């Protein structure tokens, strides 16, 4: 009997099965096609990464090096702080390896084993030194290895900050050959013991992890190989999804197929994240060895290697900066694994266990000089694009002195706070116009910018008032007028000027181009006939304008240009009183020419730029130009010392700054700007105070800017030897009566020492206070400076 039912059933099934099989085959073939394509795509991605630029290297910016020499002022704590900031660690006994130091207060010495450092002119090989310190002075320095005396010791520069894209990855590349094999074994022991056996993924490790996770009921372990970890770090996020894991496994397989185990391992050792120092991530073995132990990988002990290997799992949990106990426990696990695997002998294992992990204090590196760094970025922008600066790992050496930078910042912030407290009208509550200030510090002899603070709070305003704000200088411009007078004399060549030449201080009108200009004195006070010195010391406007009138405003302008002002200056009479817009840096440069005996320097911030391979890309040297004679510069400095001692800046003396110094205050119309520029022979600082929207301060330069300058200079020069401006050959220092301008006699109530060009000083005695007849008759045979002037009269 025909089983029509089963026949029908089989007939109906067959095409269905066929169709199903066909569809399944098509689906699988499509999937396979996609799979092949995707694997090819992944291969392209992996190859591009392995063979292209794998990492971005931020450029690092360094402060200036620190030179120690016998006889210099140096406290034990100063050097200790400096070394700690540089990442040196204290040792119990004599330092045995690079990066260690010890302090002996009892015996008055600091011993340091200096780091190796790659300077622009070649590598420096660290060696141990002892700096003997007595009475806050470096008494002696000697090399502990050879016993030889050292006459100057250069300590490597401090890192200020870096130029980076979004994340600062601190990393220094190593080749596999540079990594101790034991460190590699330690890492393999704890992270991937079958690294040399598997082909990117390790099914055994996956199964083990699976079992652990199932048993515990949560994801406790990953079975990732080093290759998988590398792929994850290179390309993927840390999301725990099946899709991500499959992708990771595929990429790992592709990488193993394309590249050797050693290539993968080397990339892993450079890529791996090993901790965090502030804003900077610590990546790679070299950087981690530096961060945790201040050592290079080759210098690590077995215990330290085990600790580094142990950190990979959770760097911030096991960090010795956070927990010595946790770090020790983790290290011991790694040591045990290394011993079990036969990588180390029992003796080494036990030695490793005995190593004591010392608690370390993390020195947070904030960007202490954000305005300075912005200035550098602008300076470098001409030659280096932003991409180059953030990715190519340049090393930029600067002239910044972090110590002075911190002092400048503190002085400015405290000074402005204090002004707001003493003068409440300066605190503009609710208005977007806060009292602001700026300070720049320069070493006059070299032009090096040692510190720069462009505003009160970088977080609130990044506007750098040292270089971006153009403000009127007011009276701080006056020295250029007096200098032009001393150098050129009057325009009609009938008159030569000395500091004691007379000028009238009374209202006057300057006619020019059918126009009139009528300068006025501060508070309308006029003093009649005064000397040039008095006019400058008291900052008299009309007297200064009369001098400019006699010298010629063009000569005044040329003098300002010659000293270093670069802004455009119109030939207007009011220029004599500073009616021009200049930057704080320009004023600093011009004043530093005076401080440097008439030699102009170029402001120097970037000193050298090196690439990652240590090649010097750029070197900026000190540049000088003699623009006025040292004699005239000395006369000017001598007059400007009078401003500090007796004039508008005498407040600095009341505030306790007693060193020989020269300077000038500046206040503009409606007291919108308050300035003070002053210097010792070794250090110059210019301070500006005002409002960005040019509101009136109601204060003079002496009231607003001078206190900030004084506090800064007191701190900056504390402990350093006192120096004075030295008269160059061709200068005569003569004691004169400041009132008459003639040679002083014993009867002169007030006597000052004045500087003159040789042969240009007064030849006659003070007619206002004649000397006793006997002395006057003897006078031609006497040296004018040998008058028996009573101390009281001085």
């Amino acid at each position, binding site marked *: 009997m025909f089983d029509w039912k089963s026949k029908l059933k089989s007939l109906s099934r067959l095409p269905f099965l066929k169709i199903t099989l066909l569809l399944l085959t098509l*689906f*699988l073939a*499509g*999937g*396979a*096609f*996609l*799979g*092949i*394509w*995707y*694997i090819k*795509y992944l291969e*392209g*991605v992996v*190859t*591009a*990464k*392995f*063979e*292209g*630029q794998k990492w971005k290297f931020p450029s690092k910016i360094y402060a200036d090096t620190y*030179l120690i*020499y*016998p*006889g*210099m002022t140096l406290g034990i704590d100063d050097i200790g702080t400096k070394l700690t900031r540089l990442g040196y660690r204290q040792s119990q006994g004599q330092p045995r390896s690079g990066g260690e130091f010890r302090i002996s207060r009892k015996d008055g010495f600091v011993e340091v084993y200096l780091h190796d450092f790659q300077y*622009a*002119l*070649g590598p420096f090989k660290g060696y141990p030194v002892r700096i003997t310190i007595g009475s806050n*002075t470096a008494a002696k320095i000697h090399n502990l290895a050879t016993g030889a005396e050292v*006459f*100057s010791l*250069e300590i490597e520069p401090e890192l200020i900050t870096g130029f980076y894209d979004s994340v600062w990855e601190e990393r220094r590349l190593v080749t596999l050959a540079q990594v101790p094999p034991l460190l590699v074994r330690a890492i393999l022991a704890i992270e991937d013991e079958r690294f040399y056996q598997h082909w990117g993924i390790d099914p055994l490790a996956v199964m083990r992890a699976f079992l652990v996770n199932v048993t515990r009921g949560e994801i406790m372990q990953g079975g990732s190989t080093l290759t998988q970890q590398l792929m994850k770090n290179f390309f993927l996020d840390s999301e725990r999804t099946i899709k991500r894991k*499959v*992708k990771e496994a*595929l990429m790992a397989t592709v990488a193993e197929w394309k590249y050797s185990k050693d290539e993968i391992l080397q990339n892993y050792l450079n890529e791996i994240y090993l901790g965090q120092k502030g804003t900077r991530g610590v990546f790679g073995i070299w950087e981690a060895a530096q961060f945790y132990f201040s050592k290079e990988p080759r210098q690590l002990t077995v215990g330290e290697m085990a600790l580094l290997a142990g950190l990979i799992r959770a760097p911030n949990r096991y960090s010795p900066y956070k927990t010595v106990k946790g770090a020790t426990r983790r290290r011991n696990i790694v040591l045990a694994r290394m011993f079990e695997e036969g990588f180390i002998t029992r003796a080494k294992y036990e030695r490793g266990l005995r190593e004591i992990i010392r608690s370390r204090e993390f020195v947070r590196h904030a960007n202490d000089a954000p305005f300075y760094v912005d200035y550098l970025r602008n300076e470098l922008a001409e030659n280096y694009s932003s991409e180059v600066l953030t990715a190519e790992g340049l090393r930029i050496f600067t002239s910044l002195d972090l110590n002075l930078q911190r002092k400048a910042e503190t002085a400015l912030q405290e000074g402005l706070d204090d002004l707001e407290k003493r003068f409440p009208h300066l605190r503009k509550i609710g208005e977007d116009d806060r009292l602001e200030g700026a300070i720049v510090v320069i*070493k*006059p*002899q*070299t032009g*090096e910018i040692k510190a720069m603070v462009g505003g009160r709070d970088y977080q609130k305003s990044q506007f750098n008032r040292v270089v971006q704000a153009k403000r009127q200088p007011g009276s701080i411009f006056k020295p250029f007028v007096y200098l032009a007078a001393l150098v050129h004399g009057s325009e009609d060549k009938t008159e030569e000027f000395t500091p004691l030449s007379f000028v009238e201080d009374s209202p006057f009108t300057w006619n020019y181009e059918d126009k009139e200009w009528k300068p006025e004195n501060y508070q309308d006070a006029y003093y009649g006939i005064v000397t040039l010195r008095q006019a400058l010391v008291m900052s008299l406007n009309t007297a200064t304008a009369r001098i400019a009138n006699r010298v010629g405003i063009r000569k005044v302008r040329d003098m300002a240009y010659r000293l270093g002002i670069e802004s455009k200056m119109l030939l207007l009479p009011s220029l004599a009183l500073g009616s021009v817009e200049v930057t704080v840096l320009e004023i600093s440069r011009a004043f530093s020419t005076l401080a*440097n*005996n008439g*030699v102009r320097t170029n402001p120097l911030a970037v000193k050298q730029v090196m690439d990652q391979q240590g090649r010097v890309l750029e*070197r900026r*040297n*000190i*540049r*000088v*130009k*003699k623009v006025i*004679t*040292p004699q005239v510069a000395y006369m000017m400095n001598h007059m400007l010392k009078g401003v500090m001692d007796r004039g508008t800046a005498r407040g600095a003396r009341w505030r306790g700054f007693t060193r020989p110094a020269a300077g000038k205050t500046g206040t503009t119309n409606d007291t919108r700007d308050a300035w003070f520029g002053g210097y010792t*022979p*070794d250090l110059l600082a210019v301070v500006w105070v005002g409002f960005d929207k040019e509101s009136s301060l109601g204060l003079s330069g002496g009231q607003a800017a001078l206190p900030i300058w004084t506090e800064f200079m007191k701190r900056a020069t504390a402990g350093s*030897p006192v120096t004075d401006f*030295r008269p*160059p*050959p061709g200068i005569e220092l003569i004691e004169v009566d400041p009132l008459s301008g003639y040679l002083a006699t014993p009867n002169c109530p007030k006597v000052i020492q004045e500087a003159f060009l040789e042969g240009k000083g007064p030849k006659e005695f003070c007619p206002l206070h004649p000397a006793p007849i006997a002395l006057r008759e003897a006078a031609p045979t006497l040296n004018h400076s040998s008058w028996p002037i009573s101390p009281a009269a001085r």
Partner: protein
Amino acid sequence: MGMRFGLLLLLLSLAGGCAPLEQVWWPSSRTRGEGTVTAPREYSSEDASLAAKIKANTPPRRAASLRLTEEGRKLLDSGHYQKALTRMEQALAIDSSNQYVYYFLGKAHFHLTKYRQSVEFLDVAESLLSSQAFWLGEVYNLKGKNYQELGLLEPAHRSYTAALRLNPKNREAAIGLSRVQRELKVPTVR
């Protein structure tokens, strides 16, 4: 065999499933390009060693600066001009009243063929060493050499002459002067 093929197909299709659609149909333009990524000179007794100028009462800064200048001078003699320049700059930063350092900075710049900058340093050295005939003579001699390199024969002539006036035994200046004189006498072609 068929089973293996099936398994392979299954694996490959699984891999294909991981591929984001946009990467499947539009082969990535983003990733395609990614990753393709002089002989040492002899010194007279006057300038034998700057370190010899350091006395017991020499201020420490001055002493350190003189020592660095001496180091720089040795580097100059051994032809390490850039290193010498760096040493001299350190010496200047420590003590700017060290008048010798300006001369040696001029010398370092001369060797680095930065003749104009060399002259600038020598201008400063000239004022600072005006009372030391030997050194002033050296300054003039080096100025002469710089001017000669710059093709400024008149100033070179003046500088060599001044150097010889201060130190008639200065052979370099004498040779320089005779060369400059020879060149100055060459009639110009119009």
